[in-house]
């Protein structure tokens, strides 16, 4: 019994004791005693805040660098210049992007949202989740191959097992017993991540009509995923372009109706500058997904 308790304590202690990863260029061997007075002083007049902020932006700008815990970032040099804090992503196309963002936002509120609200009132949520499961199951090759491309062989195995289970026990993918019964989690892997893992830079920020926020890298990623997506192949060989588009739109609207629409509104509605809020949320979320 004591062995068990002891092991637990050791495990826990080791988690805490583990130093957080420190990003490049940061002094990592500064004794704690020296740090403390500096921090306290900084804290009083608020300087720590922007040292932390500068550190985070600097870290995220590298994108693929190891995440530096905020607790480790007090050592960043203090700077007072507004323009020295680098943005998360370069946005030279901002005037164009803002125009497309406004168009998308209007399209969402006046065209797409009414469609999915009507769809919501007709189709119960359970059925919509089943439809999502079905589309998710069909798109398995996208995740499977990207797992392989990223060297995640275990993930690829998980995706393969999920496909077998959900296509059979899950009645052609409408249900997700692989997750609920076998605890096999979906592996969210896309080609944009694959490119990032192979050291491609994110490039400039782009907003596409209807598709929304993206970067150069993620746009190439979208094309890659489209090539891996069986829905694209089915459309190409068996359906007219209009039917193929219909399929794609249905998948998208269904997704929006479950939670993506709410997510979009949660980000843009409380924002002071919705364009920047969405851009920042997109980039931060992508960085997390690439790190995973």
């Amino acid at each position: 019994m004591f062995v068990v308790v002891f092991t637990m304590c050791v495990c826990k202690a080791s988690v805490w004791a583990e130093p957080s990863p420190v990003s490049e260029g940061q002094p990592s061997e500064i004794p704690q005693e020296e740090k403390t007075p500096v921090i306290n002083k900084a804290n009083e007049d608020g300087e720590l805040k922007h040292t932390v902020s500068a550190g985070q932006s600097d870290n995220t700008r590298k994108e693929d660098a190891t995440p530096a815990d905020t607790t480790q970032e007090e050592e960043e040099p203090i700077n007072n210049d507004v323009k020295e804090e680098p943005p998360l992503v370069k946005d030279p196309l901002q005037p164009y992007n803002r125009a497309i963002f406004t168009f998308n936002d209007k399209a969402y509120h006046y065209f797409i949202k009414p469609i999915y609200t009507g769809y919501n009132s007709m189709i119960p949520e359970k059925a919509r989740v089943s439809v999502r499961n079905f589309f998710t199951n069909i798109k398995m090759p996208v995740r499977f191959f990207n797992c392989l491309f990223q060297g995640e062989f275990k993930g690829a195995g998980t995706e393969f097992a999920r496909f077998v289970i959900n296509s059979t026990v899950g009645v052609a993918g409408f249900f997700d017993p692989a997750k609920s019964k076998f605890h096999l989690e979906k592996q969210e892997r896309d080609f944009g991540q694959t490119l990032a893992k192979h050291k491609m830079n994110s490039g400039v920020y782009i907003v596409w009509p209807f598709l929304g926020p993206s970067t150069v890298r993620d746009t190439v990623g979208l094309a890659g995923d489209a090539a891996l997506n069986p829905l694209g192949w089915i459309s190409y060989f068996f359906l007219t372009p209009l039917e193929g588009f219909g399929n794609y739109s249905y998948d998208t609207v269904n997704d929006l109706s479950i939670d993506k629409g709410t997510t979009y509104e949660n980000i843009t509605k409380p924002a002071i500058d919705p364009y920047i809020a969405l851009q920042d949320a997109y980039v931060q979320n992508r960085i997390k997904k690439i790190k995973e």
Partner: protein
Amino acid sequence: MNYRKITSALCIGMLSLAVTSPLLWAGEPGKLLMETIDKGFAILKDPSLKGDEKVQERRQKLWEEISPIFNFEEMSKRALGQHWKGRTPEEKKEFVVLFTNIMKDAYIGKTDTYSGEKVVIVSEKQDKKYATVQTKIITNKGTEISVDYNMLNNPAGCTIYDVIIEGVSLVNNYRSQFNNILIKSSYQELIQKIKAKQS
């Protein structure tokens, strides 16, 4: 023989308890956070506060329960980033009030659609000054949303200074917005924009 059986049973019992009950091994910040979340859920589940006509009363009660764990001054400082330092004490005070209102308006209304979501602690770390509690929200559709709470570890108790939802830090999101406005215009114009939003 009997002793061995009893010991092994105890072992298994303790192990399963340790694995199944996150609260059991949750330390101070995690415990505090879960207590606050539970208080919030209790209000949302309270039958006497249900219904559309009770919206304001419910939101108010919820705000009273959960706002003490947030450190709005620290959030405001971080959201304003390097621009905080140049502010006068009055401006700072005003900004904290405005930023608190942004948070309140934005997020307390979201609880109206509460439909049995659960919160579990994934992990927690703490040192002398900071603590991070990683949690996930499990919706009734089975989707999992990762939510991390960054806290200041004060002797008086931990306070949240940032919430990170699916990798998106709330404070960083607002800092990006404020910075973008402040590069092009003055601090007064930023305040005007926030006030316009709230009126």
